[in-house]
């Protein structure tokens, strides 16, 4: 591309150089009149074509501000006027009459003519290119067609002018016709200057001045060209120079000047017409770009402070205000969040000021002394205070002598007001209907952005919670045993079904010693990781103290003592601990605030519920005193079911609980099956029951069947409700 451009310039240079050599040679050999001949014309056409192509390329690649283009055009016009003036005052170009025409006096004049002719032609082409760019700044469908017409007429005029001139009739009718068509074509093209509309006020002013000078200069050049066109009178050096070089250059020069005069005049007039609305236009433009920025901002809401800062910035930009502020009052002043949503994140209490100090803002209060936000909160609508000194809604302050106006807009979310956007201007009566319309739209966007920002914060909390849930669930899973100790004398099975939000259900079974099996089931209050941590602690204590005593009350008392040291005040654990003598089938158990034990013997069931308070509720001896120990002498086929309240408190769609009775009935119905089958039957029954309802808690079941040891089988089922501690025999 660069090479291409250089080549073009080189080609143009070569052609002009060749032309110069030819002209000098021609002058030396013949005394023929100056002006065009075929060879000279050919070289010139090629040279200017290459130059024109070069100009177009250079010019089009630079995305230029139209006002700058106008400026360039004015500079070129100025240079031309000065150049022509200097040429006329000097006497370097000398001509002698030659027949009807004239001829350059000497070789110097020939070279000068060629030199100046090329410069004039090149300048004309440059100017034409600049004006072409001005035409194409705002391109429409007809732009190209109009421009091509202009270009064609231009070329036709130049060609005809050259031909007729050479034939000695520079004012022939065809030339006049083309000229007659050329002028309207110029006017039509000049009216494509619609870019003037979108200029800023400053640019419009600059453009007005530039166009004025451009128009004046080009009119001077055009008039000058027309006045001296009565060739071959031979009374103007500049005209003689051009025509001695080539009449086509003269034609090019005068048409370009005319085009410059027309387009600059049109430019001047339209700039002048658009000037009164320039300020308004600037504001609209600012509004549009601000709203555009704001709509982009709606997605950039990760940083609330940044959001507020940008909001005040844009509010000032839209209104050309002197200050803006945004207030998000504390949660209590906002609409209360919907109850029950644990993740609801309220809007933060925030203030962000720009261009206005807290001190100044503090001066503006309602007449009762209440803060400004109340004015908007009352109606939920935007409020305009056109004159802070006179408005009755504001408290009169002797220390607030400055005048000014305020716009107060509510920021809403879910129909409630969450904050205030305010704009301040130093002069009164600045917030007209138009401005308030735009500000209201803007405030709505800010509301959306704020709401999005809040929702993002909320979803982050939710995400964090989900992660915690996952960790808790994994912890809980790893804490529950995967294998339960087995023996021929009993069968055991257990299952824990976690709810969506992990509760703190726990079960375990382990051999205490060669003869005893320890079984426990528990429920840690609270949910999530903290519940899982307490559960881990329970497991640790259970496994470490289980072997030390077969007294279930002892074990619970030790567990309570240890747990009370570490648990926070609002947490506690319900637990049931049982010890089975695997030789005799005697099951002793204690309950620390846990659900009762379901005992099924010979097809009938009963709940056993010895007294005992939950772990972690009372660190004193009162705990141990509250715990009772109970004993069952199990008979072959007897079944014991331990469970957590997730089973009995499971709710159906209507909020009805599963309850103890249902559990007992289902257990009885399946009592002859294996412990695993009984658990599955109960779980299925609960799931059928809760169909459509939600599982709010973990559900854990543990079933133990006594198969009999031979010596004890055949005896009567007997439940000992023994309040005293039993020592193992």
């Amino acid at each position, binding site marked *: 591309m660069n090479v291409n451009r250089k080549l073009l310039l080189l080609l143009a240079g070569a052609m002009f150089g060749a032309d110069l050599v030819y002209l000098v040679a021609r002058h030396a050999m013949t005394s023929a009149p100056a002006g065009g001949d075929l060879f000279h014309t050919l070289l010139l056409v090629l040279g200017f074509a290459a130059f024109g192509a070069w100009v177009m390329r250079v010019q089009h690649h630079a995305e230029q501000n139209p006002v700058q283009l106008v400026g360039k055009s004015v500079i070129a016009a100025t240079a031309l006027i000065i150049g022509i003036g200097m040429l006329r005052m000097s006497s370097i170009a000398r001509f002698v009459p030659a027949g009807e025409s004239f001829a350059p006096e000497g070789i110097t004049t020939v070279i000068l003519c060629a030199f100046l002719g090329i410069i004039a032609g090149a300048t004309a082409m440059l100017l034409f290119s600049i004006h072409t760019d001005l035409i194409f700044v705002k391109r429409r469908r007809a732009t190209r067609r109009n421009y091509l017409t202009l270009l064609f007429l231009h070329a036709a005029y130049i060609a005809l002018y050259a031909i007729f001139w050479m034939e000695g009739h520079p004012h022939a009718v065809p030339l006049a016709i083309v000229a007659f068509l050329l002028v309207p074509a110029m006017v039509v093209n000049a009216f494509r200057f619609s870019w003037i509309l979108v200029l800023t006020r400053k640019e419009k002013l600059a453009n007005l001045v530039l166009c004025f000078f451009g128009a004046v200069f080009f009119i001077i050049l055009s008039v000058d060209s027309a006045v001296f066109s009565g060739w071959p009178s031979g009374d103007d050096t500049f005209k003689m120079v051009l025509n001695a070089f080539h009449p086509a250059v003269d034609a090019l020069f005068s048409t370009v000047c005319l085009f410059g005069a027309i387009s600059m005049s049109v430019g001047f007039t339209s700039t002048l017409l658009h000037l009164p609305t320039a300020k308004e236009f600037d504001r609209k433009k600012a509004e549009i770009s601000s709203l555009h920025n704001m709509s982009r901002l709606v997605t950039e809401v990760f940083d609330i402070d940044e959001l507020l800062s940008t909001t005040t910035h844009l509010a000032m930009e839209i209104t050309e205000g002197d200050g803006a502020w945004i207030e998000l009052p504390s949660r209590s002043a906002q609409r209360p969040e919907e*109850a*029950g*949503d*644990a993740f609801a994140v309220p809007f933060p209490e925030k203030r962000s000021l720009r261009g206005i100090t807290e001190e100044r803002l503090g001066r503006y209060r309602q007449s009762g002394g209440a803060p400004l936000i109340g004015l908007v909160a009352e109606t939920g609508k935007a409020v305009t205070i056109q004159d802070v000194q006179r408005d009755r809604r504001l408290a009169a302050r002797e220390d607030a002598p400055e005048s000014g106006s305020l716009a107060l807009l509510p920021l809403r979310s879910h129909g409630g007001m969450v904050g205030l956007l305010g704009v301040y201007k130093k002069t009164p009566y600045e917030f007209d209907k138009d401005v308030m319309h735009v500000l209201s739209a803007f405030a709505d966007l800010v509301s959306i952005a704020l709401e999005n920002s809040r929702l993002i914060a909320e979803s982050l909390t939710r995400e964090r919670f989900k992660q915690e849930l996952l960790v808790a669930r994994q912890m809980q899973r790893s804490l529950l045993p995967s294998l339960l100790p087995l023996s021929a004398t009993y069968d055991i099975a257990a299952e824990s079904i976690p709810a969506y*939000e992990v509760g703190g259900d726990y079960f375990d079974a382990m051999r205490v010693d060669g003869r005893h099996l320890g079984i426990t089931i528990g*429920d840690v*209050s*609270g*949910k999530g990781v903290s519940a899982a941590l307490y559960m881990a602690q329970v497991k640790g204590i259970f496994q470490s103290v289980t072997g030390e005593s077969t007294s279930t009350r002892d074990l619970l008392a030790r567990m309570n003592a240890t747990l009370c040291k570490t648990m926070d*005040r*609002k*947490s*506690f654990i*319900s637990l049931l601990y049982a010890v089975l003598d695997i030789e005799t089938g005697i099951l002793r158990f204690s309950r*620390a*605030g*846990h*659900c*009762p034990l379901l005992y099924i013997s010979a097809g009938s069931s009963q*709940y056993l*519920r010895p*007294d*005992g*308070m*939950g772990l972690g*509720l*009372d660190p004193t001896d*009162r705990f141990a005193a*509250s715990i009772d120990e109970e004993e069952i002498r199990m008979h072959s086929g007897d079944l014991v079911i331990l469970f957590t*309240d997730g089973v009995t*408190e499971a709710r159906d769609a209507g*909020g009805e*609980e599963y309850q*103890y009775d249902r559990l007992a009935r289902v257990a009885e119905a399946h009592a002859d099956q294996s412990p695993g089958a009984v658990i599955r039957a109960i779980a299925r029954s609960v799931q059928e029951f809760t169909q459509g309802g939600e599982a*709010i*808690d973990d559900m854990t079941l543990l079933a133990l069947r006594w198969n009999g040891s031979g010596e004890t089988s055949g005896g009567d089922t007997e439940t000992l409700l023994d309040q005293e501690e039993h020592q193992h025999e």
Partner: protein
Amino acid sequence: MNDFKVGIRHMDTVTVFDLKGYLDAHTAPDLEQAFLSAIDGRKYNLVVNFRDLAYISSAGLGVLMQFIEDVRKNEGDIKLSNMSPRVFNVFDLLGFPMLYEIYAEERDALEKFRNNVTHPPYQKPDTGE
């Protein structure tokens, strides 16, 4: 979601909380707020009326545990009243009757505060079991 509401009444020196709906892990913070506001106001004679409470989970019980120590340290108490059998069963299972005074009627609890009886006789309501 299940609804929960706490109403606060002031009866002489006693602050009464009326609970309504479902008190679980999600709604427990509301009750916590109510207790906090009372304790911030240096009110330590508290009665919780469970008349309209349909359900209470361990998180709800946790709120009571959270404040009882502070309240008793300041020579006040949290007394409970008007529990439905279902709600009472939850308290009873965990042994709360050993830790809290539970009354069939609110006025009994108020009466106890008035008479400043520290260890009233505890009567187990019908649990419906």
